Each structure stands twice: as structure tokens, then as C-alpha cells.
């Protein structure tokens, strides 16, 4: 189940981004995204788990570029969400490979999929609200928010790595 879900997510990720680019007449971009998707699938087949991180990074960069080029944010967001899910499932699949075949793999898979679906659904809702809502932030407030966020995450990571 995980394997099929993972493949579907990779296809949906590159498909969303390629569709977004294709709709605005940038077929060459769409083609490159599809080629990248094929490479991602080959990497999955060759069990190169690290490539999922490259896939996630690439999907975010492609979405950001698409936004810069004025493409539909909905397709770009969908690309990021499916990319994130593919990245998550790749790690989960690696962890499942450590299990013994008599372990409750079905239960583990079911719980994880349910959890990740709910999480991404919440993320989709919040992101959609953020995309549609128009709140005026001054630049100074925005900058302060970004610095605080970045510092917070950096400290958190440092603390976790030390502990």
C-alpha cells in the first residue's frame, strides 16, 4: 500500500506542477518537470531514499518559480503538498524495511497514512485560507515575523541536536 501511495504521490506532485506550467503555455518547463518525475521514480525503484529530499526541494523551488512566473498558486501548492507526502512516505518506507514481516505492518501503515492525510488536509486548509485571505502586513512587521520564525527554528534545531 505504501509503495503504491508513494508512486501516486510522486506522480501527483510532478503532475500538478507540470499541469500548472502547461496551462500557462510553458510546455518546456512542464516537460522538464515530467522528466524529473521520471528520474524520481527511477530513484525510488533503485531505493535511493536521499533522492526524496532532492524531490521535495525541487518541487518547492519549482512552485516558487511558478509563482514568480504568475502561475496558478493552487497547482503549485498541490505540488508542494504531494511532494511533502512523497518525502514523508519514503522515510516511512525505509523505517518499515527495518521491521520483521510478522510485525503489525498493516496497522502501522494504516495509522501513518491516516495521520499524514489528516495533517496535510489541515495544511491544505490553512494554506488555502492563507492564499485567499488578504491581510495587510507592513513590511516591518513581516520582516520581524520572519526573523523571529527563523531564529526560533534555528534554536529549536540546535537544542534538539544537542539533546
Amino acid at each position, binding site marked *: 500500500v505504501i509503495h503504491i501511495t508513494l508512486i501516486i504521490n510522486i506522480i501527483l506532485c510532478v503532475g500538478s506542477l507540470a499541469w500548472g506550467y502547461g496551462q500557462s503555455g510553458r510546455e518546456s518547463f512542464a516537460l522538464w518537470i515530467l522528466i524529473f518525475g521520471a528520474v524520481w521514480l527511477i530513484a525510488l525503484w533503485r531505493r535511493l531514499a536521499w533522492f526524496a529530499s532532492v524531490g521535495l526541494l525541487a518541487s518547492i523551488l519549482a512552485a516558487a518559480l511558478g509563482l514568480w512566473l504568475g502561475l496558478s498558486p493552487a497547482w503549485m*501548492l498541490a505540488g508542494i503538498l504531494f511532494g511533502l507526502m512523497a518525502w514523508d512516505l519514503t522515510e516511512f518506507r525505509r523505517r518499515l524495511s527495518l521491521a*520483521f514481516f510478522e510485525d503489525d505492518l498493516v496497522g502501522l501503515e494504516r495509522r501513518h497514512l491516516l495521520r499524514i492525510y489528516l495533517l496535510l488536509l*489541515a495544511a491544505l486548509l490553512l494554506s488555502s485560507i492563507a492564499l485567499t485571505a488578504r491581510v495587510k502586513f507592513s513590511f516591518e512587521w513581516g520582516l520581524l515575523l520572519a526573523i523571529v520564525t527563523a531564529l526560533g527554528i*534555528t534554536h529549536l534545531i540546535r537544542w*534538539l541536536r544537542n539533546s
Partner: protein
Amino acid sequence: LSRPILLACLICLLLLAGLATLRGELLAFAIPLLIYLLYALVQFPQRIDLDIQRALSAERVHAETPVTVTLTITNRGAVLDNLLVEDRVSSGLKIISGSARHLVTLRKNGSFTFSYTISGSRGGYSFESVYTEACDPVGVFQRAQTFPAAGQLFVFPEVTRLKFVAIRPRRTRIYAGSIPARASGAGVEFYGVRDYQAGDPPRAINWHASARHLGSLFSNEFQQERVADVGIVLDGRERTNLFRGGHSLFEYSVLAAASLSDAFLNQGNRVGLLVYGSYLAWSLPGYGKLQREQILHALARAQVGASSVFTGLEHLSPRMFPVESQVVLISPLVGEDLNVLVQLRARGYQVLALSPDPVAYESRILGLTPEVGLAARVTRMERDLLFRRLQRAGIRVIEWDVARPFDQVVRPALRRAPIPQHMGRIV
């Protein structure tokens, strides 16, 4: 790049890009990643609090006997999703069924039990800890911890039962046993004739001798049978045991030591064991079942060792063994060992050398080529010469071609005690 750092970098990248370009959509793109990271942080278990119990179906087994290891893990802390549990199994053991690694979800106060079956070659194995790795439900943060779960498994060498091993040390102990003691008393072996004394049973009267001396009666005397001290020396030197390709004669020597110590202890003797390898591992002499256990434990742990100090047998001090007792050396033997053994013999010890045959063993490993055949002949001659010198010194030598079963070779050779002889001339 670790997963949390990658996520944090991507979030920062999107936030900074959104602020730099004044595009709110880029900030919205960071939301899924942020939610994902926050969820992982919130759900990440702060500590792993497990209680792990280990049970082994047997702690003392013979080689290749299956042993079931059962681990019960109880979670005393918060819920642990995707907990990886891995029991650390010694490299000398192999898992024949089940798995030592499991991925489970443990609720608070929930427990999980798993078993796996192992088997292994001779050795002493200890189980010390269980490795666990907990992570948040989406696997971003991970925490590894090991928990103590002690256990021990001794895989003993195979013991071939020998009914009787005849030895004849000069000195015996005071307790009744099976070794002729060179003193008259209760026994079965004829010792001599003496004048009849009041109280002698009629069946002890030697009628032939009495008939020759009218008016006198003579009684037969029998040899007392007692127990003796036996010191078994197991040669664990690398130079004598190891051959090309990692082949070793040591396992055969261990089998011989186990079988002989078992036989000597069954006969009631006091037996000690010295493993002569990279150091001297001495099991003090003792009697009975307890001593059998101690010797088997020592043999289970015995290893071939290389040491520049113990290359020869010169550290085999006579003071290690009771005076004039029986010393049994189990060794493939090399030429330099002659002097040490002769010295032991000269000090009054009865020495029995049981030698697994390295020439035949190595010839089989190397294959039958003309060069190997020639080398084997030369080595065989040297070895025969060594044995002849040992025998002339009054040392009993038994050669064992390990291709043949131990008891078949040794039983006929050890059934009868050697006739005591004086030191011969060393050729």
C-alpha cells in the same frame, strides 16, 4: 542533511523569499512544512521509559542446539509510535528463526513480547542490552537509547563419553577410586602374597602357596584403587592450531579435553584444566559435577591465542600440578615441546600426550598434490621422530587423525594403563 534541518531550511527559504519578493503566497507555501514540523515536535517523545525482560529457553547448551530468546518490553512512559527494538546478538550466534529487530507501537503501560531462535558454535556469549529507537509519528526526530537486559548463554563443546580411561600416576589420593595405588588393600588386581592373618576371609587364602609350605597359610593381597590428581593442559597456541584459510585444530582439541575431563571426573578423580593460549587460564582442580561444570565453562570460553610470551610450553610449570600426578597434554605438538615434556616426566609426573594430527589435517586442506605429499612425508618423519623420543622418555603418546571419531581412536588406546617404566635415554 537531516530531516529536521532540511525542513527548517526550506521553511526559512520560503519565508525569506516571500518577504523579499513581497509575495504572501510564498508564505502560504511554508504553512504545510511548518505544520508538519510542529506536529513532529509536539508528538516527539521526550524520553523512552521501557522495562525490558529477557528469558532464554536454556543457558547451557551444546553446539548448534537451538535456544529461544524471549524479550518482553513494557512501556512505562508515553505512547511510542514506530518504536524500533533491536536485540544485540553476538556475532558468533546466528538467528535461525524469528527476528531480533521489530517495529512496534507501544501504548502507555502496554507491552510487546517477541521471540527468536538462535544457535551457535562453542563459546560463552553474553547479551547485554537492547537498542531502541523512538521517533515522532512522522519520523522527523529520532531518539535512540539502549536498555540493559542481561543474559548469558554458554555453548559447551561436544562431549564424547569414554567409559574408562586407564592412567597410572605414581601418587594417588586417599579416597577410593579406580586407579591402582601401589599399596595393598581392597581391590581386584593381584598385588602379592603374605602370611595369613586372623580375620582374613577364606577366599583370600592362596591355597597353592599354602600347599607348598606345610603348617603355614598365605593370603593373597590386592592392590588398592584410589583416585588421583589429573591436570589437563589444552594447547591453545596459534602456531600449533591455526592453518591456512582459518582452519583450526583447536575445536578437536577442545572436544578431546571435554571428553577426557568428563571421563576422569566420572572415575572420581580430581581434575584441573589449564588452557595454554595467549595467557594461562587455570581452572583449579576439583571433583564431581561442579568441577565438570567449571571445566565445561572454561572450555566454552577457550580461544586460540597468539602471544610472544607463550609461544613455547616452557611456562608450563611443574608447580601447577600436584607432585607425581597425571598430566594430560592435548596438543598438536611441535618439536620444541619435547624438552618441556621430558622435564615434566623427569620430575615424576605421568605424562599423556594426546595429539590431534596436524599433518593429515593440513594435507586434506591443501589437497593431494605431489608437493604436498612430499612435504607431508617429511613432516610425518619429523613427527614420528618426536613421538619416538617422547615414548623413550616414558611419555605416552596417542595420535589422533581428526577425520576419525575421537572415541574410536582413543578408546582402544586408553583402555589399558601403561606398564610403569623408568626414564629412558633421550635420542
